[in-house]
């Protein structure tokens, strides 16, 4: 529909030091209102310290029909997982 506001994808950083995570989408007439709407829709319970919005049409996505060539080759490559090393305690969470 021509009169619909564009769709925006919303990313929220929950705490300092964490990365922004996709939390959902919403409609808004422009970027400023999208941030305000995101504040009202997605941070009501104190979820965020920073908001990113991007218009959904600017997101390039992989095609589901390509999933064979894209993802299956990595299934059999167990040596790519760093599970063959003992990690010293001092390293902490990885």
């Amino acid at each position, binding site marked *: 529909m021509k009169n619909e*506001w564009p769709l925006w994808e919303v990313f929220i950083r929950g705490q300092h030091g964490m990365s922004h995570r996709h939390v959902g989408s*919403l*409609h808004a007439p422009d970027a400023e209102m999208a941030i*305000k709407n995101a*504040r*009202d*829709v997605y941070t009501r319970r104190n979820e965020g310290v920073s908001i990113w919005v991007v218009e959904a049409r600017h997101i390039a996505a992989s095609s589901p029909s390509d999933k064979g060539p894209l993802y299956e080759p990595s299934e059999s490559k167990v040596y790519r997982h760093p599970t063959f090393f003992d990690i010293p305690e001092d390293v902490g969470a990885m």
Partner: protein
Amino acid sequence: MTRDQALFEFLCRMGDNTLILGHRVSEWCGHAPVLEEDIALANTALDLIGQTQLWLGLAGEVEGEGRDADKLAFHRDAWDFRNLLLVEMPNGDFGRTLMRQFLFDAWHTILLGRLMTSSEPRVAEIAEKASKEAAYHLERSADTVVSLGDGTEESHARMQAALDYLWPYVGEMFVADAVDQAMAEEGIAPDPASLRPEYDALLGRVLKEATLIIPDSHFAHKGGRDGRMHSEHLGHLLTQMQWLQRAYPDARW
């Protein structure tokens, strides 16, 4: 009138404004034009009801007759309410609701800013907390007034009609009586008239950007904040807001 009597009146004015406007805004819940606005309006309504608990809670404390915020909200009749007429006006269309919100938010943020330096620490504390919420309300309502005012032909016409309709209810914010004089002398709250220049400057800025014309009139309906004459709308609002406590006094859940 003792200091505490005047303070009680002042606190009822603050709390009744946020209570009645909060209820009005909550009437949009589930009815707003888009989901995002629906949630935003519900958030605003909840902020206002939260502020009401603080103002009316303190009012009951100052009065010292055992009434708490709920008692004051649900067990008073129309003539005991001290809210501005502006906030009891029906929602009308979405544009009128947002215009009413903007006219109130502009005044509210300026007033709360002054109350943060009140000589009464309990008033200053509430103002400090409420002012952050009010600043966001103003940002949002001002933005929407600009978008709709400077929008399509239809949205512009509706916003101008909303401003024309609500303008006569603006003047009441700035008229002082004995309560205000007592509050000003004690340094608890500013003289209402002293807020007007800042209010006019803020309104001028936003409404110009919204391409809306401020009516050339200072006529003001009065009688809300002193309880002398509320509009017929307040009674209808109260029957809805208070019916449960009226039907089942002191019911809890």
